[in-house]
Structure formats: C-alpha cells, structure tokens
C-alpha cells in the first residue's frame, strides 16, 4: 500500500502529491495527516500540488476535507503550486475549495502561514488585554 510522505518543516507539515489519489490512498492520507498534526502540534499544513495535472471534484473534496480537519486541530492549510491549466479548469468546473488558502510555491505558502499565525497571536493578545487582568504595556 503506497503511502504519501509527510515532511515536517518546523511548525508546519508538507505533503507533496505526486501520484493520482484514489479512495483508499486519500483516506489514508487524511488519517496520517491528522495524526501528524496532533503528534507535532503543527500550526500549518502545506499541500504541494505542482505535480498534479488533474484536480477533479473528488480531489477537490479531499483538499477541502484536509483544510476542515486541520482547522479543527488548529492548523491552517495552504495549497501551493497549482498549475495554471488546473486553476482555469477548476474555476470553470465551479469547485469552491472552501477554507483553503493558496500560494504560488512552498516558500510563499510558509510566509502566508507565518503571517496568519502572527495575526492570530495578536488577536489573542488583545483578548487578554481586554480582560483587564493585566495592566497595559
């Protein structure tokens, strides 16, 4: 049974999809990924689709699932490296890809994730300040 490798990059996990996903493989990927997110306390998941030449509704559903599941575990998901022909086709097909961020490549994807985390931390700090428990710095 093939397994899609998941790489750890600091606080993030990187999945590079290079084969066509079918039912069983996709389910395994979702399960493995969630386990890794939990184990490593990852804050972000990057899915590299630069080698994927076809994204149909099945694949789109997987990406959406991963984003939703990760969010529940407090991690954001960024899909990176989408090929132009695939992007145009997806729009024509009408796939919404909700809750999925996108970036041009892994590097940009990580920048995006970092900025998202910073924003979340700032929001959380404001919340604590509003509680009135600490005096303003």
């Amino acid at each position, binding site marked *: 049974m093939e397994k899609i490798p998941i790489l750890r990059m600091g606080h993030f996990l990187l999945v590079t999809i290079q084969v066509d996903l079918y039912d069983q493989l996709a389910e395994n990927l979702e399960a493995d990924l969630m386990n890794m997110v939990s184990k490593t306390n990852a804050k972000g998941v990057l899915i590299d689709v630069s080698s994927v030449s076809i994204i149909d509704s099945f694949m789109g559903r997987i990406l959406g699932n991963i984003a939703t599941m990760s969010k529940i575990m407090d991690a954001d998901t960024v899909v*990176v490296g*989408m090929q*132009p022909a695939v*992007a*145009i086709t*997806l*729009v*024509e097909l009408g796939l919404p*890809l909700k809750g999925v961020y*996108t*970036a*041009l*490549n892994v590097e*940009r*994807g990580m920048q*995006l994730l970092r900025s998202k985390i910073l924003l979340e931390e700032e929001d959380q700090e404001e919340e604590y300040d509003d509680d009135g428990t600490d005096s303003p710095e």
Partner: protein
Amino acid sequence: MKNESIKVFQKKKQVILEKWITIQLQDQGLSDDLITNEDLRVQSEELLFSFIDNLTDSNIDNSESRDFENVIDILSSISISRAKQGYSPRETGNYVFSLKEALLSILSEEIKDPSILYTQSMAVNKLLDSFSISTFETFIKGREDVIFRQTDEITQISTPVIRVWDGILALPIIGTLDSSRTQVVMESLLQEIVDTGSSIAILDISGVPAVDSLVAQHLIKTVSATRLMGAECIISGIRPEIAQTVVHLGIDLSTIITKSTLASALKTAFIMLNLEVNKKQRVK
C-alpha cells in the same frame, strides 16, 4: 454510348496535355512569377492523367463519384497552395476552364457525328464545371485559414501582460471580453504569474465598452483563477456607467477590489506589498 469521349481522351492524352498547357500560358491572367513552366507542366499532367484514368461510363455523369476522389484531392491542394501564394480566384478557376477548353476542342476534332458530339460535350462540360466550383470552395477555405490565423494573432496582441513593478502585473483589456478572449487572458496572466512570481494582477477594463452579466462572470472567473495561484486581483478602470450597470444587474463584486483608475490600483498594490513611494529630499 458514352464510350466515345473516354476512348478519345485515353488515346489523345498527350495532345490534350499540350493543348491545355498552351492555353494556360496564353492566358493573360496568369502571372509569370507565381509558377514556373516546369511546375505547371508537372501539376497539369498529374491532374489530367488522374482524371482520364478514372473516367468511366458509370461516373461520367456523376461529379460526386468516389472515383474522382484523387482528382478532387489534387485539385484541392493546387487550389489551396495557389490561394496561399496569392493567385486570384479567377486565375485558379481558369485552370479548370482551360482544361475544359482543351478537352472539348479535342472532342470536336475527333467526333464527327454532331449529335454524339453534342451529348458528349455536354457531359464533359457539366463534369468540369463541377470540378471548377470545388476549386472556388477550396480557395475560400484557404483564405479562411489565413483569417483564422490572423484573428489568433490579433487576440494575442490585444491582451498584453505588463510587468509594471516587481510582483505587480497589469493587463489593459481593450475591446469586448467574450469567453474565448477570457480564456486567452487567463492563460497568459496565470503563466506570467508563474514566470514572474507576481502576487498582484491589475485588470484594467477602461477599454472594455460594455460590462453585462456575462462579462462580469468572465471577470469573476479570472479573479478566482488568479486567487487559486496565490495571487490577488484588482479591477481598475471602472467607469461610472459600469458601476451603475453592475448594481442594476444585481452582480456581486463585493469580494473583488475595484478601483476607478489604474493609478489608484497601483497605489493600492504598493500598499498591499508594503511599498512606499517617497519624494527625494533636496540636499541643502
């Protein structure tokens, strides 16, 4: 009864060829620089022999007969290549008419019975006329090929993608935005995003005469595709009439950044990229 002309043609192949070539060269319409005499002879011989070899009692009345497929093929390729070389339709049409002249003149020399001559000539006449119509049809197809190619080129030229700054692309769209143009725009834009790593694309529509629901749909599609590539779109060049139309049509552009001028779009892009434009201070 149709045997007569067929027998005559088969017997007088060479004579007909010579006669035909003579008539062609005499034709005032034929330009010397378009084809050499040698090529003309080779072309004409191929066509004539194919015609005569395939002519039978059963197909002499039927120009659509499959037996003439080879003849039509040769005729079509001659016609297409002549169209591309710049022959006028008359010159190419005359190619077949001069053949007809040669065939009919040989018939009148060889067939003495007037009524047989008449029926044979009418049959040959009808057949050759049909062949000449096919040269006009293929001529037109050849011209259409040129038109299609030029249309493609115009489409390419009219959708340039300009790198206005590091990471910022601008697309001035001039003319109507139909679905095929949108495909071209999306393809060039997305490819440019990949090539330059740009993160902002400004679509300027001040050159688009009318924005209706369809055009709006095309714009929204382009914005969505750009976002899938991890870049953002700003639509600029929104004229007041467009803003009115959009609202009246109930089109939702709320998820898209829109600006009235390319300049303000550029300003916004700079802000989004954390860039600042400063005036140089005068050193005292």
